[in-house]
């Protein structure tokens, strides 16, 4: 019957962090999926790397970097 109260370590700021990560998850889920990936299935290379290959690893790295930054700046 104890009244709901925020757990220590989970108060202000944490909620924003969580929301950001959920947003990042949705963004990554969209980017990692066929309709958007398919757009980069074109011939041709970027800096000698095939476009699709570079794109996948590029957004993957970007998502990881955003996750790291989001954790640091909360």
């Amino acid at each position, binding site marked *: 019957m104890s009244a709901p109260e925020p757990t220590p370590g989970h108060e202000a700021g944490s909620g924003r962090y969580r929301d950001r990560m*959920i947003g990042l998850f949705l963004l990554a889920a969209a980017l990692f999926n066929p309709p958007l*990936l398919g757009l980069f299935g074109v011939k041709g290379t970027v800096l000698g790397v095939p476009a699709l*290959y570079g794109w996948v*690893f590029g957004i993957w790295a970007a998502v990881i970097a955003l*996750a790291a930054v989001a954790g640091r700046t909360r």
Partner: protein
Amino acid sequence: MEAGLDWAAVLIAALLYLSALFAIAHWADRREAAGRSVIASPTVFALSLGVYCTTWTFYGSVGRAATLGIGFLPVYLGPTLLMLLSPLLLRKILRIAKAQRITSIADFLASRYGHSPVLGGLVALTATVGVTPYIALQLKAVAVSFDALTGGGLEKSAEPFLDQGFLIATVMALFAIVFGTRQIDAAEHHPGMVAAIALESLVKLIAFLAVGVFVVWGLHGGLDSLFAMAATRPDLARLLGSEAALGDATAGGGPWGAWVATTILSAAAMLCLPRQFQVLVIESTDERHLDRAIWLFPLYLLLINLFVLPVTLSGLLTFGGRLDPDLFMVALPLNGGAGWLALLAFLGGLSAAAGMIVVETVALSTMLCNDLVMPILLRTRPRALARSADLAPLLLAVRRIAIVAILLFGYGYFRLAGSAYALVSIGLISFAAVAQFAPALIGGLYWRGATRRGAIGGVAAGALVWAYTLLLPSFARSGWLPASFIADGPWGIAALRPYALFGLEGWDSLAHSLFWSALANIGAYAGLSLFNRQGASERAQAAAFVDVFQSAPDAAPRGDGSPDWRNAASVGDLTRVVARFLGPQRAERAFTGTDPDEPAGPERLRLAERLLAGAIGGASARVALASSVLAGAVEAAELLRMLDETSDVIAHSRELERKTAELERATDALRAANERLTELDRLKDDFLSTVTHELRTPLTSIRALSEILHDDPELAPDQRQEFLAVIIKESERLTRLINQVLDMAKIEAGALDWRIGTIDPGRALTEAVAATEALFRERGIALSVEMPELLPPVQGDVDRVIQVVVNLLSNAAKFTPPGGRTRLVARLEDGGLRVAVIDSGPGVPAKDREFVFDRFRQSGDALTGKPAGTGLGLAIAKRIVEHLGGRIGVEDAPAGPCAESGTGAAFWFTLPLAMSGFADDAGEPPVTDRKID
């Protein structure tokens, strides 16, 4: 291809490497024991998650890339996505696992759904069936890569038990036994094992990157030239585009479906694979480590996959179709003249295999022991177990046997299946098996209404559909079932074709299976949950899981502790049970300094349950406690809940016994209630006579005096005045009496007008003192008031509070002998106001204390004479205080100036302060609205 390395040298290198892992693990265990943990670091935690990357990653990714292009990536994108959700999902799971001392994913699910042994066993079995072949794949990968490295130097042994597969299985079993089953409390961590797998993760990453750099820059002069060369070959150019991985973008299903299905499955596997749950949840030392793992682990996955496509292309350019692409990682450096690098690659693959095998077997053995073997043993042989004083060796033996059995099973599968399709494809098939736990797992975190039957139904239905649409067809493709099983369906029924169930054609087999199994799983889970009622323990567990952030970290796992549990067990009983499973030292430490004969009480019972749960899982812990501690007196409902989960005959008869016992108890309760009613009836009669007596006394004197006044007009004025004063006093007494009776009746009927608001307690107390001062003076009792200058406002009804204090004061005035003292003490305590009236009267005997606030009751009996009053003052005070959200009670007067005559009594009550006083808080103390009692 060049001749391979000397097999003996490779073997020695491998054994040296594995010995080094043993040494690291041993060192980490020693450091942990010395209190300087090496695994309490977010980086080590993130690296240990790298156990996700098995040989299926190390060698298999290249193989998959050779046909799918970037189609190997969803297996790593899924976990990346899952990690992004960790602030939401994983943190909650970690918190729950810590609070409930979870030992495995089977234990997690069983605990969530009311400690269901059936669910725990089902999960343990599904995981074992789904994952053991995956272990076989690891053995095969090590064996095959060893052959590739040595050029088949070691004679292929036709004899079983004499090949590399068996060797690695033996070493791994040894490792798992030494570092995974050293102690029985699995909820504690395995620092040695975690340190070793973190190191292995590092080794396999370095090995992969080294091979990648060597291949790209050493063999092909850079990425651009490698890709340019590949682009000239149409069969390789295909791998660079999206078609291999995604198919024609216009067609749904097909590889498209495979991409999406693989992403979903690998995200689920990241959480549900026993080894992932082990490192992610069980071995986690601090949930804050997630904050680094959230990006470090995906980064690890990215790095280990960076060179997969270049290595694939280079291999295909170098060897064409002559060599299995799975072996490129070893073959390319060997072919390029870098034997040491090939050896490093082999060690990387060995690391991947070793880490996976060790953690998986430890996780599976814990699960099998706690959720399958122990519940069965506890139910079938409770007597044999009860005889044994220390069960720790038995638990360890069960786990060690389970480890050996799992590895033998894996080895057997490897020998039997060899290069059959069933083995090659087992990676994703395993993922699909464990993904069946995901709905019950995630649903259980957020959906309070999910029930045990729903979870059992969901997991069972999903697992059956999985077996039918993935496992059996893989057997058919390996030739163990007729090929027509896939092509025409069993018995030629086309609607039942396992890859096109009910005519769902043209789908990728994995997506097809995912669709149907998810449909069956989630359908059964939701459907059965919606149409089922939760038991009490289920409801309590559901709340403990869903609201884990709302309750204190070590809140009670269950709120339904029945009083019988408390009374039935003594500390000695608990110590004995805990000692049997965890060893005497542990038990000694847990219950040190308490008298063995003391009743255990809910706190210690909970502690014992938590300790046991850490060792043998939640489901077994309850049964163990119930069977050994509460042999005679378990509450029927509680036992029914535990027993309804078995069809066992013994349990059934025991249930009948309990029911009989419960019936007897109910009869006793009825008899007691009857006696109480009789007593109340007697009290009512007493009350009536008291009231009548009380009314008659003043009436008599009023009547007598007024008759005298009436008959004798010559009475001296002094005398007349005195008589009139007596008449007035007696009338007042009469009025007071009648008011009290009326008040009581109103309170009982709930018809009293309450004007609850913020009041100044100091004013109320002063008024009450003023109202009773005369009484004290008249009886020659000294009344002193001790309260702070400023009292904070409280929540209450000012008239009623005055009434309470007046009642307590007049009560004190009644019982304090002339010349005695009464003190009114007010102070702040525990966030409320506490007012005490301390007298120097005879005190209230302990046996009467629970009754003095009853209606019609008066302290003292016929022997000590009847004190004045109706016996209503205290009853009214109690009802008012409780209505205002406070508590009331009586205790011995504290030693001091008042204690000189008799012991004295201290009547006290509390009132909530106004600032914390919202309705919620005021309702928290036990407000009783009982009409009787």
